[in-house]
């Protein structure tokens, strides 16, 4: 079992919450810990008194008082220098730990000894002790970490790695923890998520949990700079921007340096339907929107058309797309997978962009966005946000529950931001729809393309899972928005045999969605999950007696 050094910078903490913080550490069911407290020259006399008394009563608590105020980074580094444990855990001076926090983290590390970073779920707690704002997190999601500091509390790092990256960086004062997580995870061998609420973040006027941007406006700017520095380090060609409404959310704008050839594969039957109250040939509308709106230059359009496609539609496509167009005739019964495979076979691009003919481009730099992610090491598939013509959400990634796929927030209001801003942030998921996805030709061929025994439904889910098990990530980009006039080209009904085939093929893999959470169902909390913070083992009576701290004199 590892030893934990809990590092806590302390500054002007109200007496009651400081005592509660100390009590929560002393009440840990896992006993091998030390608490390293760095008092950052607090002016209020009770702070020194409480800390000294706690240290005198408990040998595992060590305190250092500073004469001058160094700020959160300076104080955190001082506390870090006091640490002797194999792992360092970050605890803020006004927050509280669940009694089994260290025990669960220790169990996780014991299960996989190469773990370098552990984080847990968290909630918020007010001064009176009422819990709210439960944050159930996914397993490690690098793309999410670049647009939201989601791991936050409770974070436990291997101390040697924290020292290797230079500890807390004063350049990112206020978001030093975000910077540290990014630096550590760039080098970590294994990152583990414990899906339990083991940290209670206290909402005070002075804390980011309670006061938001007004409490620490500099912290959000520092967060943006930390992510920008991370992107520069890993070679992600992006410029980081802050969300205009949500201070903790960032957006990545592509700044790609080269444009690989992208083959946009569009299967079509040349169908017509009403789009915005006007009869439209879908594929013409789709190709026109690509040609007129895309800012990317190096692409070709591979149209895989069926025998029933009217010749005048083919002629008009030639007029719209000109030399970029490549036409491939598909003969035989409708099979989406076969059409896509045929299109891929007839394409020259380094990247394949699978697109339904009932899509209309809305984001001009959509291809740049996809290339930005697709070029990144470890990324296998990129998808975006699809909306219906009336503005409702159609697709923001595919999740799994009980081994079956489902769309997050399908049919929800277009302005809905999602649980924990899930619609607005880039993140990883187990699948994205093939109505609009990019994958490299190499990956497409390596996994054997689309499975032809799934001709209508689930072929995209199946493809994504093949890529997932090959060890590559699937990315949802919220800033890539497209219109999807869905299911106008096929029967939307899902057959029983399709579900059974999917279960047979992926039942084991999809049983647990790593980008979900046991307390979430398709991105939203299950009702009993709101009470999950109550699941705690009470400390034995003798121990509760011992934990009582002296009242302040």
């Amino acid at each position, binding site marked *: 079992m590892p030893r934990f050094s809990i590092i806590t910078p302390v500054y002007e903490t109200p007496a009651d919450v400081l005592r509660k913080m100390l009590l929560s550490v002393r009440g840990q069911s896992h006993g091998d810990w030390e608490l390293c407290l760095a008092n950052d020259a607090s002016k209020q006399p009770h702070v020194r008194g409480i800390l000294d008394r706690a240290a005198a009563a408990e040998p595992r608590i060590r305190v250092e008082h500073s004469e001058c105020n160094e700020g959160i980074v300076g104080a955190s580094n001082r506390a870090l220098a006091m640490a002797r444990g194999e792992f360092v855990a970050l605890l803020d001076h006004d927050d509280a730990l669940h009694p089994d926090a260290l025990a669960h983290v220790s169990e996780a590390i014991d299960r996989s000894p190469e773990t370098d970073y552990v984080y847990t779920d968290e909630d918020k707690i007010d001064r009176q002790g009422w819990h709210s704002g439960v944050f159930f997190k996914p397993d490690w999601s690098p793309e999410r970490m670049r647009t939201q500091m989601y791991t936050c509390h409770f974070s436990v790092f291997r101390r040697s790695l924290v020292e290797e990256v230079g500890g807390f960086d004063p350049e990112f004062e206020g978001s030093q923890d975000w910077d540290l997580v990014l630096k550590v995870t760039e080098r970590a061998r294994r990152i583990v998520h414990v899906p339990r609420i083991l940290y209670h973040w206290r909402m005070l006027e002075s804390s980011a949990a309670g006061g938001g941007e007004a409490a620490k406006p500099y912290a959000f700017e520092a967060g943006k700079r930390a992510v920008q520095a991370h992107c520069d380090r890993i070679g992600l060609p992006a410029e980081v921007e802050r969300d205009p409404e949500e201070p903790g959310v960032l957006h990545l704008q592509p700044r790609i340096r080269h444009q690989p050839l992208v083959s946009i594969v569009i299967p079509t039957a040349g169908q017509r339907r009403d789009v*915005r109250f006007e009869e439209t040939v879908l594929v013409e509308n789709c190709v026109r929107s690509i040609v007129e709106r895309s800012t990317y230059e190096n692409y070709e359009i591979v149209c895989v058309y069926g025998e029933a496609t009217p010749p005048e539609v083919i002629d008009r496509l030639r007029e719209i797309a000109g030399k970029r167009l490549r036409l491939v005739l598909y003969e035989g019964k409708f099979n989406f997978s076969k059409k896509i495979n045929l299109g891929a076979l007839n394409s020259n691009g380094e990247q394949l962009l699978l697109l339904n003919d009932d899509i209309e481009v809305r984001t001009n730099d959509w291809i740049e966005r996809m290339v930005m992610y697709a070029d990144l090491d470890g990324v296998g598939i990129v998808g975006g946000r699809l909306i219906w013509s*009336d*503005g409702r959400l159609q697709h923001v990634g595919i999740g799994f529950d009980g081994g079956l796929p489902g769309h997050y927030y399908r*049919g*929800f*209001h277009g302005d809905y931001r999602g649980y924990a801003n899930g619609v607005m942030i880039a993140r990883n998921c187990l699948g994205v729809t093939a109505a609009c996805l990019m994958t490299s030709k190499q990956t497409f061929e390596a996994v054997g393309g689309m499975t032809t025994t799934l001709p209508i439904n689930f072929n995209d889910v199946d493809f994504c899972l093949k890529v997932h098990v090959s060890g590559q990530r699937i990315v949802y980009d919220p800033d890539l928005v497209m219109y999807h006039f869905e299911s106008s080209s096929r029967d939307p009904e899902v057959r029983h045999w399709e579900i059974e085939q999917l279960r047979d093929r992926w039942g084991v893999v999809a049983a647990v969605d790593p980008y979900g959470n046991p307390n979430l*169902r398709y991105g939203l909390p299950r009702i009993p999950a709101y009470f999950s913070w109550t699941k705690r083992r009470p400390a034995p009576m003798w121990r509760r007696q011992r934990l009582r701290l002296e009242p302040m004199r």
Partner: protein
Amino acid sequence: MSEQSSSPTPLRQKPQQIAEQQDLQSELDRSREEILRLRDLLIGMENELGAARGRLAMQEDSRSRIASAQAQLSAKIPGAGFLFGLLLRLLRGRT
């Protein structure tokens, strides 16, 4: 020859016909504008309807989650589902 000279050439139209055609053309233009205006109106209404349907979908989702929790609770503790429902109705009454 005489037939040819007496027959009207297709390019030469009477001023009355030209005026009628212009009227028709402007009527057609007005109709087109009106269709576009009505279409824009429809698109706007479709978006409004979409927003309402989106909110309804969100409420439907919440309702089904609560119903599922209520059913789970009832299965574990007989009568608890009824009390849970009662509590919800009370809360709804307050809000």
